[in-house]
């Protein structure tokens, strides 16, 4: 293990975090809030610490697979630890554990909050909360790689650890250019949404924070009722951008390179859009009696389905009050998640498609015991390695799910609460059902349970493996 390089990378991350923290400082000063000081102090601390760690480049810049995984998971933890401090300094979140929960929830684009009254926060804190979604959505390493010539070819190991999905491929030969394209698309979508939301009458601050939450598929609202009090036009705009953010970014790349046909050839995108359409229609039918018109029912069902499947976690209505079938559909969608290579969380549609195809293959083999069959995605055979890692992913996923549910059940809440709390954090969604429903929050849990859920959020965002590697003793052995 190359500790020197990992420290160096942590230093880089801290420098960037210092830079990110200047934005809420700016917002604080604009609104003339005292909290700006806290953000400024933290920005300076992060930057200085970062400088200290990156004073000189380590002699060996080799970054192997293991180092990549460890560097990414540690960076996310360090980022959250420092990012949580301002909440403490401004005394808006008095407990550090709560502040850490809130920050991790932000960076991992979960959107699960421990705050009962969000509207009491200062503008600077609201902005920082939402901005962490934006940073965490595409990933901080993708951002760093787009800007810094970090360490040549081996940076792919960092990208692999941070990008969602069963297999990572470059869009163009250079990692740096790939990262630039990804962030370019990301910023492009962000700008589009901000402009549209402003056009529909949202204030600039509201539209910025809402957009950060949407394109990062985070879900921190700046109102206590999330997006419930905004106009239908705004809600529909957010629905569209949530669904767009859940699409594989490779699809946008095809779109930009003028290969519209290739975009719709991506099997995952078709499954994703199909699932949304089916689930939203089912729910709209189920809840048609609860709202004034079918149009309203459709608006709510599409919003909630988009919000849950992309693991954003915004809400326009309290879906905890919906009929059982609709709730059940939503919980199933929580597992599904968005497309690989998007900013969303969850198991990912492509993994599920691979799993369903594996099931079909296994059943066919029962009929023809000597059958040879390749699983295919987009017309290409899927490597055996990918299928295997998908199976292992699912195994780890369910073990984590069960273990976490067991661990937080110490708090003696009912099963729905415990189960959906874990599902909502592991899949980076945000709200669950019952005591953690859209109008409730996570402050009810004990400190221990919060740590379990924090682990789940990080594990979920980093696709399980990087966090699991931290738990393996052999990772820490010198070699």
């Amino acid at each position: 293990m190359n500790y020197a390089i990992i420290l160096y990378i942590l230093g880089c991350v801290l420098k960037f975090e210092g830079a990110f923290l200047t934005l809420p400082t700016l917002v604080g000063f604009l609104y003339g809030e005292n909290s700006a000081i806290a953000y400024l102090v933290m920005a300076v601390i992060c930057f200085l610490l970062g400088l200290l760690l990156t004073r000189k480049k380590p002699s060996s810049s080799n970054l192997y697979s293991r180092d990549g995984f460890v560097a990414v998971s540690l960076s996310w933890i360090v980022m959250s630890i420092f990012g949580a401090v301002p909440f403490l300094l401004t005394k808006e979140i008095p407990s550090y554990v709560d502040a850490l929960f809130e920050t991790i929830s932000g960076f991992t684009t979960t959107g699960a909050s421990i705050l009962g009254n969000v509207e009491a926060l200062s503008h600077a804190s609201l902005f920082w909360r939402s901005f962490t979604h934006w940073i965490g959505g595409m990933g901080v390493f993708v951002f760093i790689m787009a800007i810094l010539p970090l360490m040549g070819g081996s940076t792919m190991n960092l990208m692999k650890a941070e990008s969602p999905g069963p297999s990572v491929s470059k869009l163009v030969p250079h990692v740096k250019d790939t990262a630039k394209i990804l962030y370019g698309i990301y910023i492009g979508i962000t700008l589009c949404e901000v402009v549209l939301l402003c056009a529909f009458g949202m204030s600039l601050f509201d539209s910025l924070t809402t957009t950060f939450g949407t394109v990062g598929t985070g879900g921190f609202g700046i109102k206590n009722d999330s997006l419930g009090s905004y106009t239908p036009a705004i809600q529909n705009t957010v629905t569209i951008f949530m669904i767009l953010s859940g699409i594989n970014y490779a699809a946008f790349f095809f779109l930009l390179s003028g290969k519209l046909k290739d975009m719709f050839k991506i099997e995952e995108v078709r499954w994703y859009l199909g699932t949304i359409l089916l689930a939203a229609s089912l729910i709209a039918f189920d809840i048609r009696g609860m709202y004034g018109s079918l149009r309203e029912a459709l608006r709510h069902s599409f919003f909630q389905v988009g919000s849950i499947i992309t693991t954003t976690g915004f809400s326009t209505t309290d879906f905890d009050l919906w009929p059982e079938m609709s709730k059940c559909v939503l919980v199933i969608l929580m597992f599904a998640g968005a497309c690989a290579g998007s900013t969303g969380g969850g198991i990912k549609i492509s993994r599920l498609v691979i799993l369903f195809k594996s099931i079909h293959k296994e059943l066919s083999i029962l009929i023809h015991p000597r059958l040879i069959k390749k699983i295919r995605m987009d017309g290409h055979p899927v490597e055996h390695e990918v299928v295997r890692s998908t199976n292992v992913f699912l195994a780890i996923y369910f073990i984590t799910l069960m273990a976490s549910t067991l661990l937080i059940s110490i708090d003696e809440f009912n099963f729905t609460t415990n189960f959906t709390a874990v599902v909502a954090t592991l899949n980076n969604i945000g709200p669950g059902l019952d005591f953690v429903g859209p109008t409730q929050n996570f402050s009810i849990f004990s400190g221990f349970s919060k740590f379990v859920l924090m682990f789940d959020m990080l594990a979920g965002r980093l696709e399980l493996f990087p966090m699991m590697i931290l738990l393996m003793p052999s990772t820490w052995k010198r070699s």
Partner: protein
Amino acid sequence: MNIIIVGCGKVGYTLVEQLNNEDHDVVVVDERPEKLQNITDNLDAMGILGNGMSHSTLLEAGITTADLLIAVTGDDEKNLLCCLIAKKTGHCQTIARVRNPIYNEEIAFLKEEFGLAMIINPEQATAMEIAQIFQFPSAIRVDSFAKGHMSLLHFRIGPNSPLIGLQLFKFHQTMQRNVLVCTVIRGDEVIIPNGDFQFEANDIVAIASERRNALEFFRKIGAAKSRVGNAILAGGGKVSFYLAKMLLHSGIDVTIIEIDRARCEVLSEQLPKATIICGDATDQSLLMQEGLANAEGFAALTGLDEENILLSLYTNRVSGARTVTKINRIGFHSVISELDLGSIVYPRVTTSDYILRYVRSTNASKNSEFEKLYKLANGKAEALEFIIKESSSVSGIPLQDLNLRKNTLIGCIYRNGHVIIPSGQDMMMEGDSVLVVISGYRISDIREILED
């Protein structure tokens, strides 16, 4: 014609044999002395030992005066390179054998860029032949003419057929007017029958007809079989691959049984819709497990002729499937033809037929275009298609007034989208496609069917 053949494998040998029969001067080039020896000992051709891609070897073989070079070594790349060098050195036409499915996708590009007169893909040609049989399983062999509008359909007279004992002149009265019996193969003999001819059981009869009329005919004699809906292919070679692709394309379910696991993997990548089974095709229980008893089509395409023959015999015993047997070597033809093997395909004959068709067509005169050639009964008879370009001594005259050579038959005329089964009053006209069946002599121009 001066012809150079590079590569002395199975196809090379057959080609030399056939071209020799047609009085061409053949030079063969190969790096393997024993193969070369085998050809020069048995056939009247000259052998040059050396690498066919080498400029100096080609010069030695007489590339500067050659009219045609045919590259049929085992490697596609060698064949293409050889043709390219030949083209740059001499003024000859070139033919390359290209079998790799990857290149096959780009065949038009290769042909254009390498300046090739023709690219032959024996496996694909064989697969096409088998696919036609599965499409029209009433016949054991289907030779198509005029872009598929006319066909020569071969079938074996079964033991209970109403045709047995029937005389040919009665056949046309009682059966159907729009089919014409062209040849009958009885044992080793090929007969172009006249009115007194009497059918016997086990005769292999070839009729010229349109497909739909033929179907009606097969229904009348109780031998109609509907199109195959599923097929089992034993062996996963290139023929299997091309065949599976064609069959899947026309909606036929395909199961391929191949023993080599690595090959299975490749097949399953390239043919996602086919069922690929890794196992020994000669394992009876495996065959039954994969539904041989209910299969409608079966093709024995392994690399061993003996295995293929056994498999087809077994299949005919346990199921009603339409069977096709691939035979690579041609020895024991008379024994094989007596077995109940269903249809038999010979890839190397198919290949040499293709090439001969090209060679003859370059000899053809302006007023008729040589279009197709099929050899019947091990080359004892030929079915040919000509397109009449200009009026000549054969056109515009009623057939009964033409002084045709012995053993010559005008089987079919395709004119303006209509198929004419000719009687004595019909005549050949400009623009017609004409199917001619001949036995005992060779022609490369339509006028040669007339007595001198």
